[in-house]
């Protein structure tokens, strides 16, 4: 069987839902596929309130933003088809792609595609890092906030970026004892407001420390930590043991880029954005003119900026099919202004460098 659509959106997280909503609302026949059982992406497990911007979702919990985006797409149901439990498995020539649902394979022909595949969690090298009981921060959030199950009784958190800090707090809310937080850098990576929250609850934060090994044979029984020097090398005779039954790794994310490589988009490595990302212009168009990108797949950021970039990609993909539109221009201009505000200031500095490099390499800046 095959399906025909004007705009084809891959991934139903904040970027994909926003892109599909805008494209369909402007008038494009749109198809969205997502490989999980329900759209919403990683927002469905994020119980914390977002900082956002004053006019977009500030102070709202991630789970509420997911509900809102799910509601938005219902308003454009006449032009938007959503397929859950369906994975995009490949791009072919002539604007064709393959999708797989349950056990059925179908071809999709499209005029413009928006790839919003998100990211995958990073691991960390240490002895026994493959033991059952060692999880990514995303896995912990899914288990706890979607399925209502604690990962264990006592957990060690590795990484003090915002995810490490926020998930530590969520673990405490769920009744798990956080025995400590380990950070290789000399200072805490995330916002101090999040760090203060868990510090007040008595969680020790070990900066300039790393995890040397996990203890246990069929499961985690503890961990050995040590101090690191300014070159991140372990300092001898500073090892100490900490007892825990699970370990959470919050050590960053890497964009999921397989589909861009299949579609022969030119890639660029930008450390500030999490690794290899598809080159794209300020319209979120990649070097393959039929393919757009939005969200973490274009560089690791967060849900609010993913929503805005999704809106830009959705508007420009609509124009790629139907031609120039003043309404699409207005959506793009508004989203760009909001992005500029969100990425301003010292906390957005790394992201700004990374984004500027992508635009420069794409010949625009």
């Amino acid at each position, binding site marked *: 069987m095959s399906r025909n659509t004007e705009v084809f959106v891959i991934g139903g997280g904040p970027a994909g839902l926003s892109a599909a909503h805008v494209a369909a609302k402007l008038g494009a026949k749109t198809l969205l596929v997502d*490989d*999980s*059982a329900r759209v919403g992406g990683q927002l469905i497990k994020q*119980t914390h309130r977002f900082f956002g911007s004053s006019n977009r979702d500030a102070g709202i*919990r991630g*789970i509420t933003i997911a509900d809102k985006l799910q509601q938005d797409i219902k308003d454009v149901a006449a032009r938007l088809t959503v397929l859950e439990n369906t994975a995009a498995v490949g791009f072919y020539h002539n604007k064709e792609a393959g999708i797989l649902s349950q056990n059925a394979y179908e071809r999709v022909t499209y005029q413009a595609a928006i790839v919003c595949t998100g990211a*995958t*969690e990073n691991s960390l090298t240490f002895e026994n890092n*493959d*033991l*059952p*009981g*060692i*999880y*990514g921060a*995303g*896995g912990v959030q*899914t*288990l*706890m*906030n979607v*399925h*209502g*199950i*604690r*990962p*264990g*009784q006592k957990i060690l958190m590795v990484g003090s970026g915002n995810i490490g800090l926020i998930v530590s707090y969520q673990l405490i*809310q*769920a*009744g798990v004892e956080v025995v400590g937080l380990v950070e290789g850098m000399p200072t805490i990576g995330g916002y101090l407001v999040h760090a203060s929250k868990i510090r007040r609850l008595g969680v020790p934060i070990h900066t300039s420390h790393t995890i040397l090994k996990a203890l246990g*044979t*069929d*499961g985690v029984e503890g961990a050995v930590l040590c101090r690191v020097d300014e070159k991140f090398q372990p300092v001898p005779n500073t090892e100490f043991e900490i007892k825990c039954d699970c370990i959470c790794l919050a050590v960053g994310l890497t964009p999921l880029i397989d589909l861009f490589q299949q579609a022969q988009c030119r890639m660029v490595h930008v450390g500030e954005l999490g690794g290899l990302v598809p080159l794209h212009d300020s319209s979120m168009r990649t070097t393959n003119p039929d393919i757009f990108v939005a969200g973490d797949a274009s560089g690791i950021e967060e849900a609010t900026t993913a929503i805005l970039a999704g809106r830009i990609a959705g508007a420009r993909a609509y124009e790629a099919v139907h031609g120039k539109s003043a309404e699409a221009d207005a959506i793009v201009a508004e989203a760009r202004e909001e992005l500029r505000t969100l990425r301003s200031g010292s906390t957005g500095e790394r992201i700004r460098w990374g984004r500027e490099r992508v635009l420069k390499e794409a010949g625009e800046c």
Partner: protein
Amino acid sequence: MTSLRIEKHPVLSFPERRTVKFYFEGKEYQGFEGEPIAAALHAAGIKTLRHSPQKNRARGFFCAIGRCSSCIMKVDGQINTMTCITPLKEGMQVKMQKGHGYIKP
């Protein structure tokens, strides 16, 4: 040991679901209908879901979203089932698979 199931949470509420019986390595367990098989096993205190094919290292729940293959098991005879995203049903037979599993030609 206290249960890993969250009973009270300041932000979230978890709806009542039907309890179903299932079997892990032939032994009877209980879980909620529709939750992922790996979640039900985790709540029952089972953390080793398989062993790695080459070095026989214990493997458990990891990504929870069907990406990493750490939790693949044999479910009702079907090998390589991603148990972190496969919903639990009454009477399911869940087994640790040996190596890469074997499909009859």
